[in-house]
């Protein structure tokens, strides 16, 4: 086994990002599409922290990762509220069956 370098972390991040895109494109349930978005944000965060570590622990990358985590929390809260509203209006959260934006 070779020494773990930055490339290993980048490959993990690429695979996680691809899975996020796949969840976003193939799933019909809106909540599962949200999970795909969380995967993509996590993949970006792994990149930020990995580059930060391999520049001799440059903490600016950590600050950026922290802001990404804050944005992910905000996005999840607002998106779940919208999903709840959509469910009340349409009685479904399958993206294919939602045709109206208002009653």
């Amino acid at each position, binding site marked *: *086994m070779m*020494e*773990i*370098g930055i*490339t*290993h*972390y*980048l*490959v*993990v991040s*690429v*695979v*996680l990002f*691809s*899975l996020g895109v*796949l*969840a976003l*494109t*193939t*799933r*019909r*349930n809106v*909540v*599962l599409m*949200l*999970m*795909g978005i*969380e995967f993509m944000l*996590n993949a970006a*965060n*792994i990149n930020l*922290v990995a580059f*930060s*570590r*391999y*520049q*001799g*622990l440059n*903490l600016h990358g*950590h*600050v950026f*990762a*922290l*802001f990404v*985590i*804050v*944005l*992910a*929390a*905000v996005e*999840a*809260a*607002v998106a*779940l*509220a919208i*999903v*709840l*509203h959509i*469910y009340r209006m349409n009685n479904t*959260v399958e993206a294919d069956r939602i045709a109206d934006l208002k009653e």
Partner: protein
Amino acid sequence: MEITILFYVFAALTLIPAFFVVFSRSLIHAAFSLLFTFMGVAGLYVLLSADFIAVAQIMVYIGGILILLVFGVMITKQVTDVEIQASVGRTIPATIVVAFAMVTLIFILWPVNWMQSDYLPEIEGTTMELGELLMTTFILPFEVAGILLLVAVMGAALIARKPEEVQS
């Protein structure tokens, strides 16, 4: 050597449940396997000596976002329900395109000679320096993020309210 083994353990802990989220037919199983993905990512942060980010990941993602998502699944679905999968005619092309993009990205980044310094400064954790950075260089983004959180929580509460309550 231990680091190498730990890296592969955490990478597997991240990616295998992630596959499960994408391909599982049971919604609630997908929601719960998200827990292991977030734990695995936190482990990777620890390996990258990002202790504060790792703890923030566990607290925000597992303590907050995961609970919200599980609530979302449970409120909008019966637990025993099985999702009607997208038709094969849509899943297979998407999988092919995404796999192609993934392989391309890996082929691009694999041969690059990234700037790597194994130098680690002698500090006890990153929390103190991170706090200093947030209070000096990044004070403006920090405050803006606080305002954003406040606005988002108020907006989420407003959107999620029942429509008739808004009128009264």
